[in-house]
Each structure stands twice: as structure tokens, then as C-alpha cells.
């Protein structure tokens, strides 16, 4: 398959990438990560040789940016049983759920991203594994552990 014009590629994937980032880093960090994701993609774009799964490719980049974002903002998994403090929901966006978002943010990176790809974006385990560079088995384990932890946090 030929490389589509970047405009068409971005049009096709921008919604998915934004939804992924809104869930993975929260609505406040999503804009910055979105821009970094597509700039990194644009930089590499002309040299892309495998154009068969561009959806996985862009989510791979977005996943790396989400991890970088968490590192930069110093958010890490905190092994406590406490429900994380509910952040202030950004004005005018009632659709974002602050408490759940904070619980997801407290998960270790691999679990967090695996849970988001699987349960927010409905990706197959094969996709989750490929996007996160793990085995399918590890992808299942990360989703399982992540969801288990979220259930503990949200009860």
C-alpha cells in the first residue's frame, strides 16, 4: 500500500489518538501529547516502509509519548489502598471522569496503557501486544492486573 497523504492519515486517526491520550494522560495533558505524537510521526513519515498497520504505528508513538508525559509530570504508581484525590475536572468538559482518571493514572505504565488500549479503545490483545511491544500473554496479564487494581481503588 502506498503512503497516504499525511493530512488523510491524521484525519483518519486523530480521534482515536486523542481518545487514547485523554484516557492515558488525562484531558489536560492530551493536547501536548497529541502534538508530540503527530510531529514525531511526521518526522518519520517519509521513511516509513511498512504501511500495512498505520493504526498500530501511531498508537505505538502515542503510547511512548504518554509514558514520557507521566515521567515528566512525576506521576507514578503509588502502592497505597487509598483512592487518589479527585482532581478538579477541567471547565466545560463534564464528560471526563476525574476520579476514575486519577485511579488509572496511578497504575504502573504498562498496566495503564494496556488497560486503556483494551478497554477504552477496544483493541484486540494482539494489537495491545504489538503496540506496547510485549507478548500477547504479557498484554493479557497487564490488562488483568490493571483492572484488578482499579476495582480495588474504585470500591
Amino acid at each position: 500500500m502506498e503512503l497516504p497523504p499525511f493530512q488523510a492519515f491524521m484525519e483518519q486517526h486523530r480521534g482515536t489518538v486523542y481518545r487514547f491520550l485523554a484516557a492515558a494522560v488525562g484531558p489536560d495533558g492530551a493536547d501536548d501529547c497529541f502534538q508530540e505524537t503527530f510531529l514525531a510521526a511526521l518526522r518519520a513519515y517519509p521513511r516509513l516502509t511498512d504501511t500495512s498497520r498505520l493504526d498500530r504505528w501511531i498508537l505505538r508513538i502515542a503510547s511512548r509519548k504518554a509514558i514520557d508525559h507521566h515521567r515528566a509530570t512525576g506521576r507514578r504508581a503509588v502502592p497505597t489502598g487509598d483512592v487518589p484525590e479527585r482532581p478538579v475536572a477541567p471547565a466545560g468538559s463534564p464528560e471526563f471522569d476525574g476520579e476514575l482518571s486519577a485511579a488509572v493514572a496511578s497504575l504502573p505504565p504498562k498496566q495503564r496503557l494496556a488497560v486503556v488500549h483494551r478497554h477504552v479503545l477496544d483493541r484486540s490483545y494482539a494489537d495491545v501486544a504489538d503496540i506496547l511491544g510485549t507478548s500477547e500473554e504479557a498484554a493479557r496479564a497487564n490488562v488483568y492486573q490493571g483492572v484488578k487494581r482499579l476495582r480495588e481503588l474504585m470500591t
Partner: protein
Amino acid sequence: MNTRDLKRLAGGRESDRRSEAAATAVAAAAADHGLLDVALGTTDSPVGELLLAVTPRGLAYVAFDDEERDELLERLARRLSPRILEHRAATDEVRRQLDEYFEGERSRFELKLDRRLMRGIARDVLTATARVPFGRTTTYGRIAERIGRPRASRAVGNALGSNPIPIVVPCHRVLRSGGDVGGYAGGPERKRRLLRLEGALTG
């Protein structure tokens, strides 16, 4: 907690709306970082909406609105670069000069042109065509003579028909000998319209 609750984190329609604004911001940042090889913009005109494609070298393409957009973008991706994004600001100067032209306030375009989409004889033909002044016309045969290939008027016609930068490179000023306006990539009606606008055709 049900795993279905996690869907709410995606932000629903709010995220779709935000992703549109974020995509626009990507194009501006790409231009700042020198990553944008082809910038797209549109402008309204008396001959319909025009799609403009500008590269760092200059104006590369002007499309009439009957050209299929997706196909055009694919062609530009193949022949120029796949790093194509809508970025209106990069087409501002072209838009301004076109507006002035259509308002009768500009008879010469002062724009840098990217001629990479002109191939072979077309490059010579279009260079000769660019010298035909506002309000004047010439013929296919004359252009053929001017490029030193007096018997190539058919090739001249084909080259003009494939002009990637119509209006700015004024292929509408080249007519059939005998007065018939001849063909035009945007259709003969647009050609007549442009010639009337320049006062080169009455009625």
C-alpha cells in the same frame, strides 16, 4: 467498577472536537519545525473555490473545485512529498494576490513558483506562457514557435492542459488560432470568464 465505565475516560464527542483543533495546531507546529513539505489552503474566487498547494519553494498547484480532492492529495503525496497538511497561513500570500487579481487590482503575480509538477516540454511551454501579459492573448502555434518547436502546437496544447498552476501561470491566455478559446483544464467556461475579467474577450 465495570470495565465499560472506562470508556468514559475517552472523552467521547468532546475528544473528537478537541482532536480537530489539536490537528490544526499540529500543522502550524510542523511548519515551524520545517516538517511541512506541502501546505494546503483554499480561497473563494469567481471561478469557484480554489485549492492551493504551497511548498517551501513556492506555489506548486492550484486546483479548481471539480478536481477530486482525495485523488489530488494522493498525487501530490506521490510527486512532491507525503508530508502534506492543511495549513492556511502558508497560503495567505497566494490568496491575497489572487483576491487582488479577481478584484481587478493586480495584473501580474509576484509569487515564487515550485515547478516540480511541470515535466519535460511543459516546463518550457509554461515558462513562455507566463510571459503573456494580462489582458492579452496568444495562440498555441505562437507558443510553439517561441519555444523553438514550431510544429509542436498539439504538444503545446497538452502541456497547457496539464498546467499545475492555472490562473497564476496564465494558460487561459493561449487560444486556438482563428479565435476559438480552445480547451481548458477547468473547462472552457472558466477560460472565457477569466478572459472577460481581463477584458481580453467581450460578450
